[in-house]
């Protein structure tokens, strides 16, 4: 009773206003604030992406911009003043070519001409100030990390000025290729078995097995690679053929890691094929295999392809397995039984040690990270495109 009265009271109050007024849009600040907060939460994801691109970009920029100094073993033969443009250097050491950038103490100069032991230089380059230098001062020659060299040089030895990402990239592609050789046939076969052959009981056992396999942390797979797969390979091929750390073992185990991904995505694609299509094939007297391989699989091709691409991207980005089992130290090789460091493995090894900011190592992990990010993002976008544009439309 009490409630009813108070309710009618409210109505009486509003009835003095016009009807339009009671129905008019009201500003609800609380609602707006909540919506604004929710919106900001959603926008954070954009900031994360921008953050990734910005951080990788900036540090990569300074990686390519930086000059790496090497001792020429030459010294100043005579002291120079701040205004001198002519240097006299000692005989010893490696020759300095025209156009080279050299450094004396903190000052950077560019060599414009060379005549015997005399160098003509432009003083105060790269925002440094001309200063007087004493006799016997060591001369360093600078070398820039060049983008072109980054992708063509086959050695990665930052300490002596070789910055070729190829050995790391090559090892990454090797482990990924081996992984795909394992994961594609097995994952697809398991998907076909699950979606086309297995009864509900078998499925109810197999699906959780795949889920468990997908839920195991990668560091555990790393342990598996090193303590099981490698000894197995060494047993089969011989200890002198297979090194303790090798890309084959890491690759095979990455393959096992991505099998659940391949099989679950492929199975989704296969079971999305309408039953009518299967019935049409059976109605023509096709056997189950003919139906599966020649009708269902082609109809699911876009989904299966997308699964493969995502799996490749996952394999390329996989870190702990290669960090544990593929070996440390860049090695440009095509032999899967040799140790070779991958891009991700390199990042983990470098950053696992004491890493000082702005060192060449610090910058290099960003340059490698950017390569990795570009590679995986491209693959993910391609897979999305494949699904969206090559899907067969059924009613």
């Amino acid at each position, binding site marked *: 009773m009490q409630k009813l009265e108070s309710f009618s009271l409210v109505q009486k109050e509003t009835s003095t206003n016009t009807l339009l007024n009671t129905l008019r849009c009201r500003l*609800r600040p609380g609602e707006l604030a*909540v919506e604004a*907060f*929710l*919106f900001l*939460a*959603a926008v*954070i*994801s*954009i900031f*994360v*992406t921008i*953050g*990734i691109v910005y*951080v*990788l970009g900036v*540090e990569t920029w300074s990686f390519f911009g930086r000059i790496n100094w090497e001792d020429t073993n030459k010294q100043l033969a005579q002291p120079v003043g701040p205004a001198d443009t002519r240097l006299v250097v000692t005989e010893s050491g490696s020759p300095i070519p025209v156009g080279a950038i050299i450094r004396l103490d903190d000052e950077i100069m560019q060599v414009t001409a060379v005549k015997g032991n005399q160098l003509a230089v432009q003083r105060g380059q790269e925002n440094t100030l001309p200063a007087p230098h004493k006799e016997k001062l060591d001369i360093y020659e600078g070398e820039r990390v060049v983008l072109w060299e980054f992708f063509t040089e086959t050695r990665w030895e930052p300490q002596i000025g070789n910055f070729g990402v190829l050995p790391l990239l090559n090892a990454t592609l090797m482990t990924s290729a081996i992984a795909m050789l394992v994961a594609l*046939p*097995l994952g697809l*076969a*398991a998907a076909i*078995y*699950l979606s086309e*052959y297995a009864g509900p009981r078998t499925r109810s056992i*197999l699906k959780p097995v*795949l889920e*468990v*396999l997908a*839920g195991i*942390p*990668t560091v*555990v*797979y*790393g*342990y*598996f690679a*090193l*303590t*099981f797969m490698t000894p197995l390979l060494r047993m089969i091929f011989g200890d002198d053929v297979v090194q303790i750390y090798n890309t084959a073992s890491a690759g095979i185990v990455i393959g*096992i890691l991505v099998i659940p991904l391949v099989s679950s995505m492929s199975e989704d694609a296969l079971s999305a094929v309408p039953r009518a299509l299967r019935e049409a094939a059976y109605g023509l007297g096709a056997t*189950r*295999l003919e139906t599966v*391989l020649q009708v269902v699989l082609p109809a699911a091709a876009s989904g299966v392809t997308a699964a493969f691409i995502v799996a490749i*991207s996952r394999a390329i*980005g996989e870190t702990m397995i290669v*960090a544990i089992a593929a070996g440390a130290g860049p090695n440009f090789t095509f032999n899967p039984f040799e140790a070779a460091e991958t891009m*991700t493995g390199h*990042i*983990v090894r470098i*950053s*696992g040690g004491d890493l000082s*900011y702005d060192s060449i190592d610090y910058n290099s*992990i*960003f340059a490698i990270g950017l390569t*990795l*990010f570009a590679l*995986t*993002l491209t693959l*993910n976008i391609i897979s*999305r495109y494949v699904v969206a544009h090559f899907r067969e439309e059924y009613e």
Partner: protein
Amino acid sequence: MNRVSTFPQESQLRRLLARRKRIGWLWQVVFLLATILVVLSLIVLLYNIVVGAFGYVIVQDKVSPQEIVQTYTDTPEAALHTLSADQYRFILEQNLSKGLLRRLNSEAPLTERSREELYRLVVERVVKPRVVQSYSLVDSIFERDKIFAEAAALPHSRVEFRRWLNLDFLTGKQASVPELAGVRTALLGSLWVIAITVVVALPLGVAAAIYLEEYAAVVANPWLRRLNAVIQTNINNLAGVPSIIYGILGLAIFVRGLEAFTSGAAFGATADGATANGRTIMSAGLTLALLILPIIIINAQEAIRAVPQSLRQASMGLGATRWQTIWHHVLPSALPGILTGTILSVSRALGETAPLVVVGASTFITIDPDGPFSKFTTLTIQIYQWTARPQDEFRNIAAAAIIVLLVLLLTLNAAAILLRNRYSRRLV
């Protein structure tokens, strides 16, 4: 009509069909074998871990107990563990350096320690048993004789069956020798990191999901619509970024850029003497939060989408505002689904290693973390460190730590499944 009919004869057709069926059968076997191989690889993986965590070890004493008894007591036939407290104290005083004795005395005077405690000290500091060789469970079973023969050839040594996964392992601190090392520090580190991850990622993730599901669809402004579409695509793409990239992001942003904040300096909390700079639990937690944010969003979106439209309409029909509808009806219905998704994301974060290495997990600390600004190590980092060591015994404790990790993950997943089952029952 002149009808084409070049189909084979009946008998030929029969043979052809028999062949087609044979091929079909063959491939079915191939598919089945491939599936079995996949199952087998899981079994072998688990088996390999269990086998590594248990097995015989050959323990060698630096000094044999009998020799100690003979040298320092007048009862040469007595066993070491039967001596008196005074005898143990005498042995310790004779064998340990002055500095060590002083340290032990300052912790708790030897004279006040119990007999058992002193006995443990004698074993630990004087006898110094060391595992010199360890065997997997399989070797322990099948090559028992060889192992015992090998032990017999070593002086002061014996064979023991060791469960590397034991209570001491769970509660023990990090140590440089495998048989004394434990995972307590790492376990606490993992829990601290995960706590921060969840506290940050869960509200943000759910909020973003609510926005995308409940608000984005009714936006009229074309620019905002486009932005919403970009956000959605972006989240899907972020979910596919390799975890190590998040580590690099965390290194640049949290460890370095926000060092004042993540090291705790901004709050006047320089936790332990050794400054952790930005390489703290806080940085690790935030990094993992960014990593699982897209996964939480996607899962929460699915859970929210599963809430029937009729519920929203009923609520709106009663004059509830959008937020009232969400808060009172949509969220409660979607909560079990959101929690299931969150638990699964958390188990993903718990298993991550690479981003933590990059963010700067400590490889060797013995002090338990005491807050978000401590240095840290985690279970996965320890597994990585121990696996990467060349000595077999470290592999054994890596296996033991893996079992701890897997049990933890299994518990989480079981919780998620229970939640899902209760939820789906309620819907029916």
